[in-house]
């Protein structure tokens, strides 16, 4: 995360780290149920085999997992069948964990949005991850507040790259707060509000997907997979993989 800050342990209990062998942290992921997490499809390019991966939850410092962390193997990886590597479209995948997580203060799922629930342009939401901060890769989980940007406005930043309805943009024109390399698959969450103010319930609207080279001179918003678009697909896949007999 560029322009963010280190987060307090337990503040983002749905954030997880997708790790592979000696490489350690590769991508972020998001817990959505006791046995289910989401990440982006591009994290699995060339390594779609479940046994290569493990998911670490309840983690704040990558270097010191601590007593609150839980590690799970991966039973299966479901990459969206329409994932398009060139356009980075349909960039989403579902991770089925080997065993259920134990829900604690540090490990809790986030809500999926309803079928037609989208964050409003100019709403302020949060991104988190262990990705690049512009001068280093951090050990502590970083958080940053970003503003939701409409698709049409977002397209103007990415003249040469198509912004599809499967994408969501958030950030700032000056790129002051943005996700970066290593944040992929991590959450963009917004707190539910009513007229009286925040309600204390957080919903997952985006998964960090792509953008400009975040610490280069080219600035602009980050692009996230639009979770609302995929909610029916996610629910269907979880149901099929849990209950359906072959």
């Amino acid at each position, binding site marked *: 995360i560029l322009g963010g800050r280190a987060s307090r342990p337990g503040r983002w209990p749905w954030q997880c780290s997708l790790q592979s062998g000696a490489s350690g942290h590769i991508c972020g992921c998001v817990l959505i149920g006791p046995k289910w997490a989401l990440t982006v499809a591009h994290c699995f390019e060339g390594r779609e085999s479940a046994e290569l991966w493990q998911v670490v939850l309840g983690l704040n410092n990558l270097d010191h997992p601590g007593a609150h962390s839980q590690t799970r193997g991966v039973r299966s990886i479901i990459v969206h069948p329409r994932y398009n590597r060139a356009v980075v479209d349909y960039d989403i995948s579902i991770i089925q964990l080997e065993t259920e997580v134990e829900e604690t203060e540090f490990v809790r*799922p986030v809500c999926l949005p309803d079928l037609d629930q989208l964050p409003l342009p100019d709403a302020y939401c949060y991104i988190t991850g262990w990705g690049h901060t512009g001068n280093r890769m951090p050990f502590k989980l970083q958080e940053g507040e970003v503003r939701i940007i409409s698709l049409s406005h977002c397209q103007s930043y990415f*003249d040469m790259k198509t912004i599809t309805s499967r994408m969501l943009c958030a950030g700032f024109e000056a790129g002051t707060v943005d996700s970066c390399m290593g944040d992929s698959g991590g959450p963009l969450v917004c707190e539910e509000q009513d007229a009286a103010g925040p309600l204390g319930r957080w919903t997952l609207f985006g998964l960090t997907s792509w953008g400009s080279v975040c610490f*280069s001179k080219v600035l602009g918003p980050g692009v996230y997979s639009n979770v609302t678009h995929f909610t029916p697909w996610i629910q269907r896949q979880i149901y099929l993989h849990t209950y*359906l007999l072959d």
Partner: protein
Amino acid sequence: CISNPCPAQCGANSTTCLSPPTNTSCTQCEPITLELCMNLPYNSTTYPNYLGHMSQRESSVSWEASLFPALVQTGCYQYLMFYACTLLVPKCDPVSAQRIPPCRSLCRKAKERCEAVLGVVGLPWPEGSECNQFPQEGNATCLLPEDGIDECSPSHFKCRSGRCVLATKRCDGHLDCDDHSDEENCGCAERGLWECPGSKVCIQISMICDGFPDCPLLVDEVNCSLCRDNELECNNHQCVHRTLWCDGYKHCSDSSDEWHCVSLVDVSGWALTVFRTGSQYQVCADEWNPHLSQLTCSQLGLGAPSTVTMVAEQPGVAGRRRWLHVHPEWDQKEGAALQARLEKRSHSCYSRKRVSVLCAKEDCGLRPAPPPRAAPHRRKR
């Protein structure tokens, strides 16, 4: 790698390793996937490139990958895009797996003609493209534009006049080509696309009847199959016999015969309703049990049951209802969905009561309360 072979994960085609050797320090030819450079007279590349990028993914999001296509529109140099691609996705020599550089003269022409254009908007010429690093033609193998090289990248539209404008500017209602050719022939068909009936949206032909709706009102996914009367249409337009629908087993290749089989319908309580053989059924309470209530809510993604009631049918209505009963071996079907644990029977429901379930949605999206702070240190503003 000088004394050792390349790491195994580099693959059999890897011939050269970078120094120092690491698990990823392998060079090999790979197909070009960078959209900007898909129309080059070569189709394989190797990394790192001449701009220091380590992969096509890195190139695709780089500053230069945005800069060069924008610069092409100015028409500053006919072969600018070709030159840019020799830097972004260098040609890979199939024998040595080494990159082949652009010739110095190509670099110099591009820089001479286009650097000043960039300067007008205050941008520098890309770093790392110093021309002296490239060989002069004749001294070594290097790349020069050949006849027939496309001046525009695949992300550009070529105006009749020969100028390149961004493909996103084509048919956008604004004149971008000097000869206005970007606003001619703007129908979907002329662009090799399919027009969604009832709207002006164009989609790729491969998206018609592929099981994913892309047009407004889903019109790209209608009239895609001709199923017989005893069949139902899968989401991907296969036809599957009605009796196989919602039986707990996958028959459509996309599993869609097992979607939306169970629902809770709000009719004087949340009536458990199951779709079977093309019709809606209610569930007889005769052999219902708490385990099945649990399964119902869990399968619907709604957490745990909060209220389960057996609702008596009103006289005069029950005769018209269709019933599903709990299968005698419902507990033998490990991990199966609710619909697999129910069956049709010849007789009606003895109790004449149907199952009604209310589920309590699972908690999500809540963070633990922040730890209390010691009051004396609190500073109000």
